[in-house]
């Protein structure tokens, strides 16, 4: 980073008379940004021209679609905890990032997205490639604004980065009219650290912490539910201390995965519709739940009126709108996860809940017998997704970063990958965006160049953003892409089988030859059909130094179990 900054500073001796484009680049440097994801076009061309002159100061990744650019920026942000930056032009360039904005908004991902806009005098006239992106993006951004005067750039950029990555993080969009890029201004940057109308609350009230500690210390069957708030506040170490001190079993949401190692003795698995059996079933027996940095999403609670009826609930979240939104709870605590755990730790008594945990173990055994055995150690038939995932985990190692797309393979990867360190799982949770995986892997690999990055995707999701294979080749990123090909839109097909009398409406896919496709894009590839070849082919993919696409032809009509059927209570989860 400092190299980038030094070379930029050399080029810019005088910051008193710079163009708007230069001011944006200087703002990036002030915020420590050197990796940009984007796609040029008419309205943003002056900015790209300046970027070209600053060759060597920034690494710009040219994706093959704007949606790819924003998902890549999301992948980058999720593995680094920094703000991802995405650049697109006006009109279609801007509308193409809406899905990514909505995804980042749901999953609390800090982004600053720059869009070009037609020149100020043409705004509102339906000019070529004009769209009202401010109104369009309002519902899916934490904040958005338009810049029509170059002198406003430093203040607005500082504000954008502050808003994006403070409190509950989220995406910010700044729309620049084209004339701003070439207008001259004097650059003077001051980081933003507070705003009059936006003050995230970090500390819990002491009386709330006291009450929570009292309840935890006296509970007979307490349970911790944690979400991405742990990762976003970097509270992984505190979380470990919390569960170890209180002795309480802990379960994660989909986005909380990797905050606590899967191997931790107090980690009971994943919550939700396709989560683990024990943590879901035991929500019907617990007497106290403390939920930290999660939002009681309907995929976790199922029918909310049936969830945790017998338990006292403490809900800790930095976003006050989440408190009481989906669940009425007994203690609402508006606080940052890290700060909350930090303040409650000294008040917790050392406790042992081994009798209560033994109940979880019994449920785990049931799941092992009914589900794991079939998923991970099948004796005949086609390859199962679960066995492919565990084989990949073996070759990639538990420190690898796992990216998924959306669907059956996503749930299987979430269930079976042995996450061992924080920020190693990136997936589209709240929005469930098919096509997220491949571009997100680009960002993740750029964010963590020294780590192995594995992208699991399905045959359906891959085809939504498969043009980004070319980006991976152009940028020479050693991403391993594992396509679990079942020839169906598998999750939809599963629902059709179970709830629509097996009427497979528009879910069967005629797929391209993924191996030839990858090779045409400049990526080495192979296919595995037979179980006996799985080990050697996965090992070969990981032994290869560059990007590799391995298509694993899996069972066509495999289902994801356990499952909470729609409309049922979580405690009615089924194993088959």
């Amino acid at each position: 980073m400092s190299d980038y900054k030094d070379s930029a500073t050399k080029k810019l001796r005088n910051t008193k008379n710079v163009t708007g484009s230069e001011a944006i680049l200087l703002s990036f440097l002030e915020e420590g940004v050197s990796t940009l994801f984007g796609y040029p076009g008419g309205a943003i061309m002056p900015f790209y021209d300046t970027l070209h002159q600053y060759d060597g100061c920034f690494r710009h990744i040219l994706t093959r679609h704007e949606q790819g650019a924003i998902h890549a920026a999301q992948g980058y942000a999720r593995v680094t905890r920094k703000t991802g930056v995405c650049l697109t032009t006006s009109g279609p360039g801007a509308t193409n990032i809406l899905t990514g904005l909505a995804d980042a908004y749901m999953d609390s991902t800090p982004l600053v997205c720059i869009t070009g806009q037609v020149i100020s005098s043409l705004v509102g006239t339906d000019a070529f490639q004009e769209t009202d992106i401010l109104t369009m993006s309002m519902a899916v951004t934490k904040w958005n604004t338009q810049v029509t005067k170059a002198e406003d750039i430093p203040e607005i950029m500082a504000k954008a980065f502050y808003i994006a990555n403070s409190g509950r993080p989220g995406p910010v969009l700044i729309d620049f009219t084209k004339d701003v890029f070439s207008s001259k201004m004097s650059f003077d940057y001051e980081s933003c650290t507070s705003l009059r109308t936006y003050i995230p609350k970090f500390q819990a009230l002491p009386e709330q912490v006291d009450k929570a500690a009292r309840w935890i210390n006296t509970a007979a069957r307490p349970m911790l539910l944690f979400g991405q708030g742990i990762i976003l506040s970097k509270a992984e170490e505190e979380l470990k201390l919390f569960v170890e001190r209180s002795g309480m079993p802990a379960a994660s949401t989909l986005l909380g995965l990797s905050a606590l190692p899967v191997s931790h003795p107090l980690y009971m698995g994943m919550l939700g519709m396709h989560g683990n059996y024990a943590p879901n079933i035991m929500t019907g027996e617990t007497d106290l739940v403390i939920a930290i940095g999660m939002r009681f999403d309907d995929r976790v609670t199922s029918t909310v009126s049936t969830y945790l009826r017998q338990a006292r609930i403490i809900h800790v979240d930095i976003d006050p709108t989440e408190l009481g939104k989906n669940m009425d709870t007994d203690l609402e605590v508006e606080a940052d996860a890290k700060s909350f755990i930090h303040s409650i730790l000294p008040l917790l008594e050392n406790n042992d809940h081994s009798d209560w945990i033994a109940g979880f173990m019994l449920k785990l055994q049931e799941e092992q017998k009914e589900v794991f055995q079939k998923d991970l150690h099948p004796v005949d038939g086609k390859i199962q997704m679960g066995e492919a995932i565990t084989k990949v985990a073996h070759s990639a190692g538990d420190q690898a970063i796992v990216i998924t797309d959306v669907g059956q393979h996503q749930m299987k990867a979430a269930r079976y990958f042995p996450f061992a360190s924080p920020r190693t799982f990136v997936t589209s949770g709240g929005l469930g965006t098919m096509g997220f995986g491949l571009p997100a892997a680009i960002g993740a690999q750029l964010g963590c160049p020294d780590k192995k990055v594995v992208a699991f995707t399905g045959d359906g999701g891959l085809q939504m953003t498969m043009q980004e294979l070319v980006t991976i080749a152009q940028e020479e990123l050693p991403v391993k892409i594992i396509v679990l090909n079942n020839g169906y839109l598998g999750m939809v097909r599963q629902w059709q089988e179970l709830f629509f009398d097996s009427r497979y409406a528009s879910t069967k896919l005629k797929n391209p030859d993924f191996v030839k496709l990858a090779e045409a894009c400049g990526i080495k590839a192979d296919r595995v059909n037979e179980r006996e070849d799985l080990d050697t082919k996965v090992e070969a993919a990981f032994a290869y130094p560059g990007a590799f696409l391995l298509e694993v032809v899996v069972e066509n009509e495999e289902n994801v179990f356990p499952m909470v059927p729609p409309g049922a209570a979580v405690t009615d989860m089924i194993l088959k």
Partner: protein
Amino acid sequence: MTTLAQDRVGLLSRVAMVFSRRGINIESLKVAESAMKGIAAISMVVLTDARTIKQIVKQLEKQVEVLQAFSAEQPDISKQIENHIQYAS
């Protein structure tokens, strides 16, 4: 309910969005400069239940431009008015 927020282009859209997203119609609306410089006061009347209002106040305050939002409840008097009209006629 009243919302105090930084006066800028698009503010009303952001505030209105919080209501429209929940399918709530704004019965009446007034936007005026508040006693604080640069801060507009938006007063609205909506018909909904107390739980929703609590959520809406929080959602309004979540908007970056909003300084403060608060609500005052008015019991539903439509029935009484109806009765009164019937009685009067």
